[in-house]
């Protein structure tokens, strides 16, 4: 089992979710986050007082998958989120120790999907 964390551009969320859906990957947690990478921030000005904006809005997706779904998930995210510009984001893949479905107490890979 893997736990996939993807940081993507906010305007690519719909496209990524659609592509995940097409590959039968329905379970995803979406969070609005602030972050910083090589893209840097956009500075802001308030009554001529400049704010060196160092953070940008991003969206974080978290997806738990069984191993056979790892490749399709990464393909869906890459396909939907890539624009070719700095700031497209990153995908982190982590080993997932266990999953428990709260309603039924099912455990392990049967609880992932």
């Amino acid at each position, binding site marked *: 089992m893997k736990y996939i964390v993807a940081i993507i551009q906010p305007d690519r969320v719909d496209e990524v979710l659609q592509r995940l859906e097409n590959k039968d990957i329905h379970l995803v947690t979406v969070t609005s986050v602030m972050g910083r990478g090589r893209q840097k921030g956009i500075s*802001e*000005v*308030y*009554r*001529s*007082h*400049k*704010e060196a904006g160092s953070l940008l809005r991003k969206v974080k997706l978290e997806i738990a998958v069984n191993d056979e779904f790892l490749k399709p998930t990464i393909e869906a995210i890459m396909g939907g989120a890539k624009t070719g510009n700095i700031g497209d984001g990153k995908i982190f893949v982590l080993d997932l120790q266990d999953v428990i479905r709260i309603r039924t107490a099912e455990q392990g890979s049967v609880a992932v999907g």
Partner: protein
Amino acid sequence: MKPITARWSLLALLAYLTCSAVVPCLSRADDAVAVPAAPAVASTPAPKIDTGDTAWVLTSASLVLLMTPGLAFFYGGLVRRKNVLSVLQQCMMALALITVQWMLVGYSLSFGPDQGGLIGSLAWFALKGVGLDPNPDYAATIPHQAFMIFQAMFAIITPALIIGAFAERMKFSAYCIFILLWSTLVYDPVAHWVWGVGGFLHKMGALDFAGGTVVHINAGVAALAAALILKKRQGFPTKISPPHNLPFAVLGAGLLWFGWFGFNAGSALGANGLATAALVASHIAAAAAGLTWVLLDLAINKHMTMLGMITGAVAGLVAITPAAGFVNPVGALLIGITVSLICYFAVAFLKPRFGYDDSLDAFGVHGIGGMWGALATGLWATKTVNSAGADGLFFGNPAQFIIQIKAVLASAIYSFVVSWILFKVLDMTIGLRVSEQDERIGLDLTQHSEAGYTMID
């Protein structure tokens, strides 16, 4: 100061208000008999109430009332999210507290029988004798109480304007005591000087149509004293987060602009041509000032900002306030353009140069804009708009400009000195600032036990 001392001082304040309210109530029965029994002087016809004028002044009072919640949202949007309620509550507290102060003593001190040109007497304590018949000294065609309640709204918003200078760091108990004392010792006397029958600036011929001196210079200069005495917020100027909700600030500015029509056009005290001239002038000045500010934004910072647009519009409304019923539309346009040039400079260059933390630019916009408005009235006033007014410098009467300078100096110096003393005394006795820890946590939680926003649900 310990919280318990703050609680006692607030209780004492309430006790003062209650006691002073009870005394005149005891004599109320006599008034009720006395009023109808008083025979009218045979030679002067009883003043007649005009329904149109009354409707307009009551409507204007309602419009000006809305400016205080509008100001609350204007300021509330500009602070950090942990302090949004503290600013809203300060504004609403001014509404409640100053209404009671006004009803008991404020109106009498401002407009009551003159005492040496400096202040009104307490003869109208608790609105004694302020009834439904017109008072021809102030407004001959509307009930005296209509004039009183219209003026009450001005007395409420003026101390609330000062909030901009000490936002995000002042103790709420100290705030309450401050605005009560400030209204009584600064607003009421200055209102009497300018508008009261017998007031010395009034007799000198100073022009102030709707309160440039009384409201904006007064509050703006007190704001400078506040910023100097309360000192900077922790982290100012580099570590302060930007406005937490600019859409709130735009909403507030919209309500202010709308309410300002009551403020300025209502000051004609009648539904007439003068009210129309004041409304038209106010709107033109606001629009011209907003436009000028964003053009400066574009020239200096490459973008037209939302905050710049609303700051400019408010500066325009501030500056046109004393001039509204005295200048023609072209004068209004010029006042709108010039005030943004001046206030932009004050906010963007003067404040960083001197380093005082006038957090929401109460001095930069209301103080500087108010002074410019009062001076500009002496430049562009013309009797063709208002025969009861005067001509300004550009209409062949330089003397009026000198009078305006004197009025600006008198009110600015008086307000600064008394505000300074009030802040100093409160700082030495009960303390003005919240603790460092409370400032970090935010005023909403530490002063009001509430949060503006929940995180979940």
